[in-house]
């Protein structure tokens, strides 16, 4: 097929939008860390932009989208951009240059790896995070992306629906985050000691950039400048708006309307609509957005306050739980008029079961593989910083920098 300039322009812009989500995530996470860990928390996202940005081109893309090997992983035929050029692929997004499709997908790999870091901030050793990230992208992200989006991928073959990465990005990152927390343990002083966000305006700015970039993430996943992109765009905004407002109401009922809660809700809404955006009508985003905020709010209460997991920035509770709800919601609300697939409401109950298989498969694989990779990193270079390093803060101990200058200004 030949190149469509409109499609190419849109996916190029979308790729840039998705890239911007990772600096957005750096701010979103960084603001929630304590003052002494602000830079180290942001650094995790920026370092992953470098690391995965390179590894994706070298081998990540090939293992995700290369020639199918048993439905499980891509082959070697796209290693180092081999056979990936200015002409369209004959399999994927056939109206845009293959390079654009590769780049767009690479931005997803970057943010997925960066998402995990939120669970382990304030005590993971920086070198361990880098080694873990390289291994995780290779062994977890690329294969799971192949299962769901790769030509010949087994979950794709089964008919599991994941428009923009509810399973590949959010369940994958959320469950892996939980597994890594289990290996790494709690921050010193958790719970009990108050660990106060150092700068909620940064969190809000980060959430704004995430929301903005998410239009590229979801509407760009149409891989064309068409009606489906428009549907995804509107559904995305509606879900974020609904969920942010819902979380605000929940916090109001408990205490007072919280900004941190509102922006967290918006992000949860974006997570939940991600798998659904190209399969459901825009209006379905309203129930999806309401339910995700209720689910994620109480997931935080359960995981952190009751069970005592120090998933520091609630990656599992927001991305894992939000992604699981989004995957189920896609099976429930899918409309054949939008993405050509009927869901439960249109009488196709089997779609929910297929979605469930996808959730369990991705969740179980991510959990087990992360435990293995994390253990490997732990026994080789050690996952955690020393007690003193943790106490003085990772900004100083890992990076020799501090976020705010001292007395002399």
């Amino acid at each position, binding site marked *: 097929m030949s190149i469509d300039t409109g499609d190419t322009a849109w996916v190029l812009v979308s790729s840039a939008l998705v890239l911007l989500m990772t600096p957005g995530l750096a701010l979103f996470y960084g603001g929630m860390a304590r003052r002494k860990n602000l830079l180290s928390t942001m650094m995790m996202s920026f370092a992953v932009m470098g690391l995965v940005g390179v590894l994706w081109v070298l081998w990540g893309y090939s293992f995700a989208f290369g020639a199918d090997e048993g439905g499980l992983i891509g082959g070697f035929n796209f290693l180092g951009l081999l056979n990936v050029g200015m002409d369209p692929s004959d399999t994927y997004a056939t109206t845009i240059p293959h390079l654009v499709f590769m780049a767009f997908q690479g931005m997803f790999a970057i943010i997925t790896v960066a998402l995990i870091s939120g669970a382990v901030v304030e005590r993971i050793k920086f070198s361990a995070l880098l080694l873990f990230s390289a291994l995780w992208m290779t062994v977890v992200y690329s294969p799971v992306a192949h299962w769901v989006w790769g030509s010949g991928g087994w979950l794709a073959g089964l008919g599991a629906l994941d428009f923009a990465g509810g399973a590949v990005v959010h369940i994958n990152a959320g469950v892996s985050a939980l597994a890594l927390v289990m290996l790494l343990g709690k921050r010193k002083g958790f719970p009990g000691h*108050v660990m*106060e966000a150092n700068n909620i305006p940064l969190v809000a700015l980060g959430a704004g950039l995430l929301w903005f970039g998410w239009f590229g993430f979801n509407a760009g996943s149409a891989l064309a400048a068409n009606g489906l992109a428009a549907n995804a765009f509107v559904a995305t905004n509606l879900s974020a708006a609904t969920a942010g407002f819902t979380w605000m109401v929940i916090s109001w009922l*408990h205490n007072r309307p919280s900004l941190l*809660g509102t922006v967290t809700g918006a992000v949860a809404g974006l997570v939940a609509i991600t798998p659904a955006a190209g399969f459901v009508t825009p209006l379905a985003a309203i129930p999806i957005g309401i339910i995700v905020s209720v689910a994620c*709010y109480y997931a935080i209460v359960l995981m952190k306050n009751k069970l005592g997991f120090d998933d520091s920035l609630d990656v599992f509770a927001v991305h894992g739980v939000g992604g699981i709800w989004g995957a189920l919601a896609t099976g429930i609300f899918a409309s054949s008029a939008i993405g050509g697939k009927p869901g439960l409401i249109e009488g196709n109950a089997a779609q929910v079961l297929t979605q469930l298989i996808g959730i369990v498969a991705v969740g179980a694989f991510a959990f087990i593989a992360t435990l293995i990779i994390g253990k490997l990193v732990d026994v080789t270079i050690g996952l955690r910083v020393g007690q003193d390093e943790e106490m003085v803060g990772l900004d100083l101990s890992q990076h020799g920098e501090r976020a705010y200058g001292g007395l002399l200004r």
Partner: protein
Amino acid sequence: MKKIEAIIREEKLDAVKKALEEKSYFGLTVSEVMGRGKQKGISLQWRAGEYRVDLLPKLKLELVVLDEDVDVAIDAIVRNARTGEAGDGKIFVLPVEHSVRVRTGDRDENAI
């Protein structure tokens, strides 16, 4: 000479400053401090649930006055910093050995 250290509510600074100025106590140093007393803490929100902060922001005023002026200054502070609720703050009075004006080298009574 005595040093008066007054811990007051942030929103009372202007009134206290004005009252001191009217009694012609112009020089003072103000710092932002955190502290606790009978007021205990306040509860703040995380994404889900609450946490308690038991150190609250206050302002600390420091001024040095002649011994005979202490009561007047204290009175100006107390009258203008009081709300009657817990959390109005504290005043401490300490003896001062010397004071020196850096610009001139003047000492003690000539340097407050």
